[in-house]
């Protein structure tokens, strides 16, 4: 067992392998406040990557409704049955990660879903948390909240799938931190399916091997954002590299929003895997629930998000979401524009704070006809 620093839980932790962080690490930011669960991401991913036979039940990308949805069913509740609830003292995790407190020959604590758990990938859709009683009305946080949680593989700093594989068929790439399953070496033992706390490795019954989100690595190698990100019509997603070795950079939008501003938070940091998909928490949902998912930084992040309209730097970074298919490594705010620079340092996008707009008269004089808004 090696000791690793895990900034997400504010302390060192044990992990089976020793390894320096990758040279660069892919990171994603998902703004849950903007997601409408249209599943365009899901379809973009599935059409490209998992439309083969044996992959019918496999969604590398899924969007589930919270609090009741989950794919596979009960994926997060089931692991908490093994780990117990997280205990935080300030920003430090006091309880055990899934790698700690096990026997010397035990893989990370986990559970394996059954085939039927994958059968209803959007169960619980739009179900709200509470019962709507007479007299209820919406004021700020509501007992009747729900929100959409889009999920992909977290390409973790400390992947539980890799830790559990007795064949060492799972590896993390040094160039981009993407976690992949070697499709030649995997023998379908399903230890990774059991170990991944996010349940983002899957068993393929035709391939008889496990598979997982490949992070759209052929696109990443071209400096392009992944398909689920590019396809997102709500522009809720942002994909690029965060600094993995060295200090976070204020001009890198990922470092800025994740490490410096702490607006985007990891999902279930208490498992200790160091996930690299970061979520801007939904501002209408009670902290007590969100802290279970995103850790102790929820209240601050929500406050910051509500104030983002007055913070040009934060707003500028957020405006870059969905603005280009290229990865943005550096950004700056100049006047009324946010400017994104690609991995090669060249400008790739320029987004105005206020979009150009035109007000048209109701009467179209050229055709002498009235324009009608058709509902």
């Amino acid at each position, binding site marked *: 067992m090696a000791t690793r620093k895990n900034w997400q839980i504010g302390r060192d932790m044990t992990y089976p392998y020793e390894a320096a962080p990758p040279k660069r690490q892919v990171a994603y930011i998902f703004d849950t406040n903007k997601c409408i669960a249209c599943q365009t991401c899901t379809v973009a991913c599935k059409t490209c990557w998992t439309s083969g036979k*044996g992959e019918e039940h496999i969604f590398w990308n899924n969007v589930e409704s919270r609090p*009741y949805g989950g794919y596979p069913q009960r994926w997060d509740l089931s692991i908490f049955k093994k780990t117990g609830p997280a205990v935080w003292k300030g920003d430090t995790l006091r309880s055990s990660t899934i790698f700690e407190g096990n026997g010397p*020959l035990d893989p990370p604590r986990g559970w394996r879903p059954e085939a039927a758990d994958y059968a209803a990938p959007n169960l*619980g859709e739009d179900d709200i948390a509470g019962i709507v009683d007479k007299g209820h009305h919406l004021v700020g946080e509501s007992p009747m909240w729900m929100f959409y949680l889009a999920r992909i593989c977290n390409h973790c700093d400390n992947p539980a799938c890799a830790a559990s594989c007795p064949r060492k068929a799972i590896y993390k790439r040094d160039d981009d931190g993407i976690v992949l399953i070697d499709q030649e070496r995997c023998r*379908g033992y399903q230890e990774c399916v059991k170990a991944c706390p996010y349940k983002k490795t899957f*068993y393929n019954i*035709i*391939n008889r*091997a496990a598979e997982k989100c490949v992070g759209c690595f052929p696109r990443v190698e071209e400096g392009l954002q992944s398909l689920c990100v590019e396809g997102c019509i709500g522009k809720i997603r942002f994909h690029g590299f965060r600094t993995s070795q060295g200090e976070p950079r204020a001009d890198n939008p990922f470092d800025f929003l994740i490490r410096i501003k702490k607006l985007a938070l990891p999902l279930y940091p208490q498992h200790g895997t160091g996930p690299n998909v970061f979520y801007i928490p939904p501002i209408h949902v009670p902290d007590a629930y969100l802290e279970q998912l995103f850790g102790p930084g929820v209240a601050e992040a929500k406050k910051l998000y509500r104030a983002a309209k007055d913070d040009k730097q934060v707003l500028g970074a957020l405006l870059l979401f969905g603005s280009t298919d290229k990865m943005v490594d550096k950004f700056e705010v100049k006047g009324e524009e946010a400017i994104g620079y690609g991995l090669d340092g060249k400008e790739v996008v320029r987004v105005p704070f206020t979009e150009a707009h035109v007000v048209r008269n109701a009467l179209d004089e050229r055709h002498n006809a009235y324009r009608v808004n058709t509902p």
Partner: protein
Amino acid sequence: MRTMRTLTVLALAAVSTWAAGGCKKSEPASAPAAKAGEAASTPIALLPPPAPVAEPAASPPTVPSAPWQKAPEGGEPAAAKADKLKIAKIAAVGEDPYGAFWKDVPYADIALLPQQMAMPLLADGTIPTLQVQAAHDGTTLAVRCAWKDETPDGNVDTGRFPDAVAIEFPLKPGAPPTMGSKDAPVQIIHWKAIWQKDIDVGYQDVQDIHPNFWSDLYWFTEGGYPYKVPDAFKKPESLQWLVAVAAGNPMAVLQRTTPAEELIATGWGTLTHQPTSASKARGLWAAGKWAVVFTRPLKTDDASDAQIEAGKPTQIAFAVWDGGKGQIGGRKHWATWQDVEVAP
């Protein structure tokens, strides 16, 4: 929580069509059933394992077979018991687990232990002994492994594993039985029930375990629903989504020719498939018992094959898995090197 539970129930109702035929335990519609008269008593592989029943030792010649297999004629060939495993010399060996020649080959009971030396371990052993017979006819070696297992598990799915057995030979003297070591590799010959089923009734398809699974199309396939594997997947471009198949993963061989796989290992986690193989195997489940025969030439010209010489002692180690109890990979039973005399 109540809402949660209600949702779960709804979910199960919603997926019941999907699950019809049993997500957990069902057999392919295409699998030839056992003889009509036996169908009722045939244990269906995919129901929860029945409570242990008394050993049907003195059962009549007709024996229930694995649902996809033809029942063997006559009972198991009765052989004498020996204290120690030995490779006997007989006139001719074959790969039929119920071949009459096995009557002349004494069997030894090899004690099995749950594997608890490497991650992931098997917490509780469920198979105490392996009944082993071994013989050669001057050119071919045959090793017959038999063990009690109430349910033949010949399918794979999430959380579903096949029964399996493996034999191991040292490739250098002093090789550790625990998957060999860097300087002293071992050779392993592996048999799995799903590979046997591939041979017996064809490659396990999605609809074999989830009969109502529907998909409008799979890219570049030929024909229509249910787009059988491998027939609908003849065009190379259709294999793009069968990634492990396209990558040549030995688990994903759509047209398998033998249920045996040769491997070498140089320590834990190093198990490596051998592209050329002289080994064959055949397994038969009947009356609550698997019997699997491995055959291979005594001598080969392959450097990664153990060479067996008549009259010279060798070593064999064993591993057994009960797939229905979640045993897979390192979660297995094993027996250390048996020093085995080879009859001249």
